Each structure stands twice: as C-alpha cells, then as structure tokens.
C-alpha cells in the first residue's frame, strides 16, 4: 500500500515538473538519480562481478581443464565429467548426501511443525519455551559440533540416558552404520529456526477460519487437514526447499567429526559427503597428488545441476499442493 502511494506521489511530483515549464531540469534530475542509483549499488555490482560472476565463468571453464593453480589450465574437454561418472567415491558421496536429504528433511519438517503447534496453543510460559528451543540455532559452529561429539560418545550423555530405559546405545560417530543417524540426532538441536518460521506462519492463520469450522462441527483432524496445512503450505514448501539445498552442502560438521583422521569422511567413508569430497579433491588430500582444481570444479557444477533440477522439480510440483492466498 505504502509503496504504491509513494510511487503515485513521486509520479505526480515528476509530472508537475515535467509540465513544459522546466524540461531541462527534469532531464538532469532523472539522470542524476540514475547515476546515484548506480553509484549506490556499485559496491554490490563490483563484488558481484569480482566474487560471483567471474568465479562462476572461470569455474565452468576450469571444469573442462586439468588445473593445479601452479601451471596454466590444460584443456581436456569432457574428461573430468567422464571421470566423475566412473569415480566410486562420487557415488559414495552422493549416497551419503542423499541419505541425509531423504531422512533428515522429513524428520526436521515434522518435528519442527509439531513443536510450533505446541507453541501456538497459548500455553503458559510460551515465550520462555520459545527462547529455550530457539537459542541452540544461533550456536552453530565448531564449538557445538564438539559438544555433540562428546554427547554422542560411546559412553556419552545420550547413551547413558538410553541405558536408563534399558536401551544399549550405538557408538554413533565411530560406527559407520550410525554416523548419519548421529548427525540427524545432532541436527535436531538446531531446528529452532524452522520452528520459528512455522510458528509465524501458524499465527498468521485467521482465527475466523477455525471458528467457522467449529460451528460446522469439524473434528481437530479435519481442521488440521483442511485449514492448518493448506494455510501454512507456503512455509512448508519454502522450508523443504531451503533445507534440501542446505543439506546438500553439509561440510563443517563432517569435516570436524572425521577431519583429523587419516581416513577422510569418517569410519568407512560413511560421512564422506559431496562437498567434503569436493574440498579434499580440490586441495589434494584425496586421489592423485597435488591440487585438482579442474576436477573439483566439475564436481561443483554437477552438484549445482543436481540442486537446480531438484529445486525446479519442487517448484513445478508445488503448484499441486502449495496454497497461496490471493488478497
């Protein structure tokens, strides 16, 4: 509303000036604003050209070369991409990464929606609970990774807690079968951001919808299915898309937990995620000696393509289930 008012106001002002009295002044004014606009945006324009546009072009070019930084890139055509297709570690990395995407995303989505619904019930202490659930999300970083490595130690806090219920806990980050479930358990500590986004979305549902449904005698389940879920579907969609994009790029956690071992990617490569593999390939810790910038660039573009295809697919599917209110 305000924006359109501003536009018409500015339009009128301009119209008044444009009126034949002072045409030269107008010409200068709009040109000066254009120049100012470009000047004000120039930090981003320079940064974009230098740190995004040029790097993207270069990385695309590098993906068709053999390149170790010291010598000039040597054009090898599609060889890097052919090598990717036959690289068993790529498949391991993709498998591990897809595991996280496929299991972590639905768990994060449903648990955070459940918590958000509890927070939306007007219960006493809601604000305190919200703070307590959200604060770990701001503590990402090496410190909290170490904290969880300690909690998930074979004789750590979680296994001690499980033992109280008679459950013999696994050895998590040292057992290749349990490293990824361990990462998902750890990831649950950081869902506060998702909870807040759902909560904001839930609070945006008009109460009148529920009142109308209650008069019609709708059951809680029907209200959930016919009111709540459609109304928050844009938030669900947004979070699925961003969670998947984020999960594809797991790096620091796996790097720290498996990093100091000679065997990259943790016990039996069970935490060899795509970006971790790419990083080690680029900086020469895996595969033939030396920096392999060309091969790593090809790996990066394959990842970009995968993310793009999945995102576009989700976008196409979203028309079937995401409900956008037209005001």
């Amino acid at each position, binding site marked *: 509303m305000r924006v359109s008012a501003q536009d018409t106001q500015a339009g009128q002002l301009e119209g008044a000036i444009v009126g034949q009295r002072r045409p030269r002044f107008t010409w200068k004014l709009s040109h000066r604003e254009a120049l100012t606009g470009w000047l004000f945006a120039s930090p981003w324009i320079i940064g974009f050209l230098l740190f995004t546009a040029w790097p993207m072009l270069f990385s695309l070019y590098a993906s068709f070369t053999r390149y170790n930084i010291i010598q000039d890139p040597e054009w090898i055509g599609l060889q890097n991409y052919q090598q990717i297709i036959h690289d068993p570690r790529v498949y391991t990395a993709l498998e591990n990464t897809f595991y996280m995407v496929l299991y972590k995303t639905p768990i994060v989505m449903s648990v955070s929606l459940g918590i958000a619904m509890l927070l939306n019930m007007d219960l006493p202490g809601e604000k305190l609970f919200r703070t307590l659930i959200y604060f770990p999300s*701001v503590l990402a970083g090496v410190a909290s990774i170490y904290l969880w490595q*300690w909690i998930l130690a074979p004789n750590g806090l979680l296994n001690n807690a499980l033992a109280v219920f008679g459950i013999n806990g696994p050895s998590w980050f040292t057992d290749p079968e349990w490293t990824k479930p361990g990462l998902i358990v750890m990831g649950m500590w950081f869902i506060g951001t998702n909870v807040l986004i759902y909560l904001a979305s839930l609070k945006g549902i008009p109460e009148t919808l529920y009142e109308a449904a209650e008069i019609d005698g709708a059951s809680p389940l029907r209200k959930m299915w016919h009111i709540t879920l459609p109304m928050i579907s844009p938030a669900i969609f947004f979070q699925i898309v961003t969670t998947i994009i984020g999960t594809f790029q797991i790096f620091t956690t796996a790097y720290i937990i498996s990093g100091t071992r000679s065997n990259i990617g943790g016990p039996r490569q069970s935490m060899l995620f795509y970006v971790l593999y790419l990083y080690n390939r680029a900086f020469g810790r895996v595969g033939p000696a030396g920096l392999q*910038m060309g091969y790593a660039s090809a790996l990066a573009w394959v990842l970009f393509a995968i993310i793009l295809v999945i995102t576009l697919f989700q976008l196409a599917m979203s028309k079937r289930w995401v409900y956008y209110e037209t005001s």
Partner: protein
Amino acid sequence: MAVTSRIAQAQRMTSWQRFKVSRVIAWLILAGVAFLFVVPVVWMLSTSLKTSADLANPNWIPQPLAWHNYRDAFSFGQWGRWTLNSLIITGVSTVGAVLSTALVGYSFGRLRWPGRDLLFGVVLATMMVPEVVVMIPRFIIFSRIPAFGFQGSDVWVNTFLPLTVPSWLGATAFEIFLMRQFMRNIPVELSEAAKIDGASELRIWWSIALPLSRPVLATVAILKFQGAWQDFMGPLLYLQDESKYTLQLALRQFEFAAGGSPAWNHLMAASLVVMLPVLVIFLIFQRYFVQGVNITGLAGR
C-alpha cells in the same frame, strides 16, 4: 447476538475440556522438549568443570568443581592472538556488511535507475548458487591478488582480506534483500522534504534513511556477526599461519595436541567461552534474531 453467545459458549466449553486433558498434556510435552534443548549446554558446563579423573562419571555436579580447567584450557597456544583475530575479522566484516548492504539496499529500494529491477533479479538469483561453485575460483583469485606484504603475505591468501573485504562489497544477497525490503517501506515524506531543501542523496541516506532503518541494521549486524564469528570454511581455506587463526580454527588444537581424542573437559571449557559472545548477544537482542528469521520465512512467499 444469539450466534456470538453460542460461539462464546462453545469456546468456553472446549477450552474447559481442553484444560482437563489435552492442554495439560501439551504443556508437559512442550516443557519436556524445551528441557531437552537446554540439557546439552548444561552438560557442557558440567563437563567443563570436571577433573580428568571425573570425566567418565555420568554425574551432573562435578566433585570437586575444577574451575582451573578454564585457566588450563588456555595455557597452550596463542589464545589471546586468536581471540583478537576473531574480533578483528568479525568486527571489520560486520561494519562493512551493514554499511555496504544498507547503501545497496537503499539504491534497490528507493532510487529509480535503469536496469535496477533486472539487477535485483540477479541479486535474488545469486542466492541459489551453492557456495562451492565459487569457492575454488575465489581461492584462485585471492591467491593471485597482491597484498604487498600486508600481514607478511605477498597475496591475499593467508591474510584477513578474503574474509573481510567481500563484506564491504555487499557480500550476501540475503542481507541486501532484507535492507531493500525494509527501506522500501519507510515513509517518503521526510526524504522528499530533504530533497527539496537540496540535500544530496548520500546525506538523505545517512541522516534520514539510516536512522529510520535501525531495526533492519541491527538484524543484519547480528546475522553477520554470528556468521563471521562462527565461520569455519573461510578461515580454513584462507588462513595458513597458526598466528592468524580464528577461534573456530583454534578449537581444533585440542585434538591435534592430544593426537586423537582431546581432553574433553578443556575442550568443553574452551568451546563454551567461544560460544559465549553469540549467546550473550542472543540473550540481549533476541528480538532482532527472531525478526531476521521471520523475514526469512516471508521471503518464501
């Protein structure tokens, strides 16, 4: 009237019924969940106060309380230097990000210039590009740009420049997006009046737009502070000398020192100290964190 009173009656009944059953259960579940989110940090504090002999015990209150862990943990290495490095990098990039994205956001949100909408589309599109696609060429660029001996390095790699300068050039699309959305909606009357008085656009930006944009400046500052303080991949890529490490890199020294499993009580003490600034800022400015998250959620619409 009759309808509204019936609704009120129905509401009273349901809330009374709910008080009996579901609401109490819901409150208990919520309290339990909140408790689970706090437990790890309490465990961290508990571990940090345990003696090495006490470490394997599952007790919550250490016997005795080993406060000296907080001294011992920092007795090796260059913790003063590493803290200073983290503060410099975080401070310089936060100031740069706030100023540059405020300027760029103002341009996208309030000025009219040819190509603006197209370029804003490009800003949004860059959010889709995975970091790894540009990681390698950026590293190559920074290993080529001369630093003329700054921090004892010939090139930008192994200096703080790759970790700070991009922030001064409107580093992340999301921050520009936040600024633009906010600045579009501040009232125009003041800036129109200033313009008629002959104030330059830079002056209007500085003395009218910026003061009115305090909430979004705070949000961007906090997001940037948090991101820069906790950044691991950046320092890992660009900082080679131990004396230039940030705290995030420094925490790994416990593992290296032990040649495997670190001294967990010392590591937890150090980790808690490294977390502390973000935790304190969160407790003071929680509402700006929440604001940032809510705008993120709205971006999906």
